[in-house]
């Protein structure tokens, strides 16, 4: 177990290094220089050179990468003379555009994305999985058909459509809700939840649909397993057969997929954030790409990769906990 974790962590670190290098190289493969973006309307060769120098873009690529990595582990000094700023580890640099420390941007945007993901994940797991399980148990009944029909609709809807429809209905037309906004949980949990209801419903409902279908299929498959028949042959009551025996087995692949989905979503729910005007990690990263804002691009790409890698490890560990046949090593 420990060996597994160590091995996976080493692999994760290697992966993240590789991703950071690829991001770096790709970034500089883009024909436009961030300096031409940053100098705005003052752009002339002199200005561009000045800005490039200020951003460190005039250094060899390998040095820039070295500086970046050093900053993460040991911190670094950014700027020269009176403008030198200490950027303590983990230093992700400053936004090319607004000079804001990237770490601050992450601290500001990540809670938004995490809030969106946590709330909607709870919704989609609760609703999706229970709906799917229930309709598997009631296969062929009106309930099943309704649930599957609804989830088919849900699965074919898109966030940008469904989200906008919800906004139109609940905010613009009826005014039942105020437009979504983010209040930190620590500041006011009620406001936090109230401001995120629509994004939660949007992502929650759409993913519920997918998870309902997935759960139903998994449950149906499990119900036809021999060990479920054995459980019934033992004379176990239905509830025990369904929960202790069938659900336990059916849930395993769902845990895997949910883990990876959540990991991917933590990297940024771009469309949801955009539609509801929430300043999350996804929006920050897309904006950064458009601005050629390398420090933010690197940080968000690495963060998203970290989430996915971490969730992969967690899912594998969970898998081993759930299924005794899985051996880590």
């Amino acid at each position: 177990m420990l060996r597994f974790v160590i091995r996976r962590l080493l692999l994760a670190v290697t992966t993240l290094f590789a991703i950071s290098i690829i991001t770096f190289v790709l970034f500089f493969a883009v024909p436009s220089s961030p300096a031409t973006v940053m100098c705005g309307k003052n752009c002339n060769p002199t200005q561009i050179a000045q800005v490039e120098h200020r951003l460190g873009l005039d250094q060899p690529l390998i040095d820039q990468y070295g500086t970046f990595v050093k900053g993460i582990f040991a911190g670094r000094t950014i700027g020269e003379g009176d403008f030198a700023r200490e950027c303590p580890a983990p230093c992700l640099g400053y936004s090319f555009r607004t000079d804001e420390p990237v770490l601050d941007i992450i601290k500001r945007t990540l809670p938004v994305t995490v809030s969106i993901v946590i709330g909607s994940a709870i919704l989609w797991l609760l609703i999706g999985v229970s709906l799917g399980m229930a309709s598997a148990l009631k296969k062929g009944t009106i309930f099943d058909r309704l649930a599957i029909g609804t989830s088919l609709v849900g699965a074919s809807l898109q966030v940008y459509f469904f989200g906008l429809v919800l906004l139109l209905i609940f905010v613009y037309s009826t005014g039942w809700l105020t437009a979504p906004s983010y209040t930190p949980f620590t500041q006011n949990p009620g406001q936090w939840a109230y401001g995120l209801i629509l994004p939660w419903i949007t992502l929650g409902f759409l993913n519920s649909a997918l998870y309902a279908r997935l759960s139903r299929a998994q449950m149906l498959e499990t119900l036809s397993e021999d060990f479920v028949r054995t459980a019934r042959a033992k004379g176990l009551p239905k509830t025990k057969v369904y929960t202790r025996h069938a659900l336990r087995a059916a849930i395993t692949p769902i845990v895997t997929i949910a883990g990876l989905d959540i990991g991917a979503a933590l990297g940024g729910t771009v469309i949801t954030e955009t539609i509801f005007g929430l300043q999350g990690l996804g929006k920050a990263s897309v904006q950064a790409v458009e601005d050629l804002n390398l420090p933010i691009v690197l940080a968000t790409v690495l963060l998203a990769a970290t989430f996915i890698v971490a969730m992969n490890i967690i899912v594998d560990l969970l898998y081993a906990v759930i299924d005794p046949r899985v051996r880590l090593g």
Partner: protein
Amino acid sequence: MRLKIGALGVGVLTVALVASGCSKTTDDSDSSGGDKAVNVQAGAISYDAADNKAPAPAVDGGQKGGNLGVFLPDGFEHLDPARAYVNVAQMADQLLVRTLTGYREDGKGNLKVIGDLATDPGTDVNKDCKVWQFKLRPGIKYEDGTPVTSKDVAYGVARSFSPDLSEGPHYIQQWLTDKGADYNADYKGPYNGGAALPPGVTTPDDQTIVFTFAKPHCDMPYAATLTTTAPVPAAQDKKTDYDRRPFSSGPYKIKSYQLGNSLVLERNTNWDANTDPLRTALPDTFTFNFTLQADAVNERLIADAPADQSFLGWQDVQPAQLAKTTTPDVKARVLEGPTQYVWYYYINTQRIKDLNVRKALNYAIDKDAVLKAIGGTPAGTPATTLLSPTVAGYQKYDAFNAPATGDAAKVKELLGSTPPPALVLAYANTPPRAAQAEAARKSLEAAGFQVTTKSIDPTNYYTEVGRKDNPYDIYLGGWGSDWPDPGTVIPPLFDGRQITPTGNQNLSYFNEQSVNTEIDRIGTLPSASDRAAAWAALDKKIMTDFAPVVPAYYDGAYTLVGSKVGNAFDSSAFGWPGLINVYVKP
């Protein structure tokens, strides 16, 4: 040459798209304007004591108090007065800092440059536009109650020389050093042991500041409206962090500023209305909301929910939303009018040397279709002149009398037996620009031209077309003046002596001796009104005699305000509604 945040598709940063100085964003799809009667810009610099008197004239029906909100997608890049160059930042800075001069606008299109910190728009000491002296009004205080001095203004100018704070306008710096873009080669601001005073600036006493230029710069009263001249006390200079909290000399100070989220301003109790000829400063607080996307901003303003009624939008209505703004209730809350931007199809005169062909192009392009591609009339109105109607001295004329939809017959008549040349039409690869390029291509082909379209990465667009040896014949570009004077339009765009291998703003690569000479002559005319008239005449001459561009359309602003926002009007200087004299209706 003011940069403006347009209606940006998916959060595209304006600056990102304006690679070449003051050209307009390539991703703009903004809409506005209608056929409203254009208020011709008088653009007067007023020394009239009545105009320069503080306090500012009372606002009709103005009410003190309340919170006025502004929806601004994506927020500000910089509020530091040395670094603010985008119109929204400059408009917000008007609440936080005072500058030597400023614009007094009455909402009817009348704009006057008067003294703000200074008692008047500046004294041209030797009547040669080379030495400018400003006297500060007495009794102006910072938010901590300390007095504003001319030394602080000088310090503000000095720090704007720093390469680390170089995002703002560079007029005064370049005029002081007379070194063009290399203005900070010798002086890099008061940092790292640099002198406290920039070259050419003196402060004989705490109330006086004098700028001495090597060449005449009669536009100094205009240039002094820029936040370059905002006072910064050296003790308060937090360098790059000053961006987060500029020290207030205006009626408001920063209460809280969360990047990417909101900016809240509260009253600066040390501000005295009796020292300020521009600002009535009626609301108690201002709240800037940065969290909404362009379409969400206007969706909410259309809905006008109680919480949003005291908000206005610094965001043009998107084409898809225009239909919702036609109901009388909403229509009454629309602010529309021309901005300082004009869009041209630049004709590369190095490649299209035949004047007849350039004239023919002026007949061939269907300006209506080009406008329709980005939302129709609200996006702008067809243009015939080089100068925008918001610019001082603007004279309406039409050198060709071509219908806005183009005139293919006239093209054939002009070209006669000459076969129309094959053209390469370049465009920035964004949906609105691509749609416009398609419309232009169709009309050109209908007129007999063979057209090859070439898409260019939007972030690189102005860099590409700004290369002297670019392989394109015709391309769209927007230009707006940094102050409503033709001197910020015609010289940068049509002075052939400024052509360099890269980074050009004269995108037609137009170099005509007679025009260059006339530009120099107008620059030395002592009277502002004489200059304005001469620029207007030159505008007409360039189009009639040389046709280096096809004026496509005058850009329009089309924004919304909530039902409780009072005295909101499009600023002639900034394009969108300014904040210094708005109020919240009870």
